[in-house]
């Protein structure tokens, strides 16, 4: 990963994590600025310039450090929050919502993890005994892709070791698991991988590790004793996609013992209107553009309802047939997700 320029907020210039990140990029020029927002997102920067001129910002996250997760974000019935420790991603998935979100592909790392953890603690202490509270990372960036540089997870581990009722989900497509392996497994930390059939990854997940590499990383984490979550999301239609998901699910259940598989979420490809326009502009040759999409119940661009519901039903059925417990399979961001399909 090469960054042309680092922009560092003056307030965090001496933070040990900041210094460590600067050290990791000795060839990049460093500018000290008052606020990340003075430069990042100040002017629209085309998304695909991430390929040639990516900058890195280091700053302090302000505003709400914990955000209530949308419905159908995780297993139902428990409070879910997500927290933002970074903006943007080094990968380039064609369907990614980040291409329309920040108006800049530059990466931002926030380093005030102590403040985020303090808010987590306050929220956790409000949870009644016997109930869990979930914290999800990876909403706006990949949790592990650059973790060897950012090393932020070492800040969080002691908190989650102290509060077993608090659960942490680290969402990733990366196989950069060295740092978390060193930290070791905790029962309430779930490393969740986005998986798709190999053909879909090759076609649409540009620059991401292959399916076999992800499987290998999962296997290593399983051997270490980590809890694993899976996101079969986004599912993209191909003729006989059912067969592709049968193979994928068989591989998954072979590698992950039932007691270490925390959940499987299912979701069909979807775009906000803005992201869809960006997607069309950025990837005019994508095979996905040959598909028939419609504006759905929430204004998002999706396959027609029978189409996406069919896909969800089929893959849910495959999961059950392969032995994944029904209560561990949930539908992500679909209006019928409140009731399991079968």
């Amino acid at each position, binding site marked *: 990963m090469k960054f042309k320029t680092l922009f560092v907020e003056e307030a965090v210039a001496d933070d040990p994590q900041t210094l460590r990140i600067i050290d990791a990029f000795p060839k990049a020029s460093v500018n000290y600025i008052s606020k990340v927002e003075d430069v990042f997102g*100040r*002017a629209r920067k085309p998304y695909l310039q991430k390929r*040639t001129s990516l900058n890195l910002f280091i700053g302090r996250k302000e505003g709400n450090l914990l955000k209530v997760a949308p419905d159908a974000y995780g297993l139902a019935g428990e409070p879910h929050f997500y927290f933002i420790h970074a903006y943007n991603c080094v990968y380039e998935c064609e369907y990614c919502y980040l291409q329309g979100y920040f108006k800049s592909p530059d990466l931002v790392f926030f380093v005030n993890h102590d403040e985020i953890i303090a808010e987590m603690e306050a929220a956790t202490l409000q949870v009644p005994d016997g109930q869990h509270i979930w914290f999800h990372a990876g909403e706006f960036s990949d949790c592990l892709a650059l973790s060897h540089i950012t090393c932020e997870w070492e800040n969080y581990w002691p908190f989650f070791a102290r509060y077993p009722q608090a659960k942490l989900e680290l969402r990733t497509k990366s196989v950069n698991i060295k740092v978390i392996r060193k930290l070791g497994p905790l029962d309430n930390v779930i490393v969740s991988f986005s998986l798709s059939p190999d053909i879909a990854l090759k076609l649409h997940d540009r620059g991401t590790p292959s399916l076999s590499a992800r499987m290998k990383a999962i296997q290593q984490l399983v051997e270490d004793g980590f809890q694993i979550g899976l996101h079969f999301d986004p599912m993209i239609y191909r003729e006989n996609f059912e067969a592709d998901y049968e193979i994928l699910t068989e591989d998954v259940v072979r590698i992950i013992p039932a007691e270490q598989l925390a959940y499987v979420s299912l979701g069909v490809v979807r775009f906000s209107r803005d992201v869809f326009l960006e997607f069309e502009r950025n990837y005019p040759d994508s095979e996905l553009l040959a*598909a*028939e999409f419609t504006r759905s119940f929430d204004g998002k661009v999706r396959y027609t309802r029978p189409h*996406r519901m069919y896909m969800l039903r089929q893959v849910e059925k495959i999961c059950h047939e392969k032995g994944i417990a029904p209560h561990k399979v949930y539908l992500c961001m679909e209006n019928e997700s409140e009731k399991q399909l079968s």
Partner: protein
Amino acid sequence: MKNEGKALLSSGKHQHGKRILLHFAHRGEARVFLEELAVHPVSFPVKGLYENERFLVVISGEGRQNTTETLAAAISYAGMQISEVLNLGVAGSLHYDLKLNRIVSVRTVYGAIDNRVEFKTFTSVDDAAEIDCISTSRRILEKEDAEPLSYFAQIVDRELWACASVCKRFNIPFRSLKMISDRAGEQALCADIAEDALRYSHALFNHFKKLAHQEEPENERIELPDGFYATVAQKRQLTSLLQAVVVKEKRSAKHLPDFLPIDDILKSEKHPKKRTIRLIHELRDYLNPFRRRLEESLKPIFEPLRGNDIRVSPARDYETNALGISFTVENEDELDRKCAALKSFDYVAYREILSGEVMSVNGKSKPAKGEDSQAN
């Protein structure tokens, strides 16, 4: 900067009757172009407009307002018959690693009024360009003013953002070639730059000439074969479907006739209009095989209604369970018959199909009311 400015002006060459508009801020920078292209002045209320059969040349004067007014007027004068706007001129360097006197093609242009950076940016059609430019509302004479601009771009000028903004307004693609004349913030004298204008103009023209000779292959057109007739709306639909096929198949449009079932359709349908309808259906089924399966699943459910001349209209793209049902009756018998058909209609099965109970590749959908149930 290999391939910089690749395929310059190709879009102009292939758009019938359209001209390329060359935009300069200063006459000195345009001088060689005016002579070599043999353009003649246009009698027009806005001064600084020249033309020949292929080009319009506009000299706007310095800065944002001059550019906006003059360029918009020139495009209007040309009756919108402009294939592309090419901005040419000098720019100051904000990054020390950029060599002076180098000509660069601009990728994205940022704008700044005083010290405030505009959110809107514009990106040129040159995919190979790698240099960004920021257009400022005033000259950058001090290093302290140059530094914050360098966070956004490598070069600075006064006009390009306004030029690109006008292009966006008129939906005309733009690109820009800039000669790096000085280091921004180092108090370069405008008089020096003006004295060198002729040299810059020569260099820009030579660059322009080289790039203008590089041509891209003509855009492929998708045409309907003989024996088909399409309305304007159908032509639009076919174009979009055929483009999707090109994307899906990753093959050139000229190979589409070999791929499409044209001969089959020609043999099996006599009427040119029906052939077109069939072709549209075939293409839609090919692009979205799921749609055919859905329609096959719905067919037996709708059969009792359609078989009795009752029209059914599902919600747009089946996004809700709503189903429009309409019919006319001319006598009591017909009313009884249609009521009976309505009673036999299995709405629950319809709803379940919309919820994903569609016939799978090797299996059947849930049977309609009255049929024997069959395990999948």
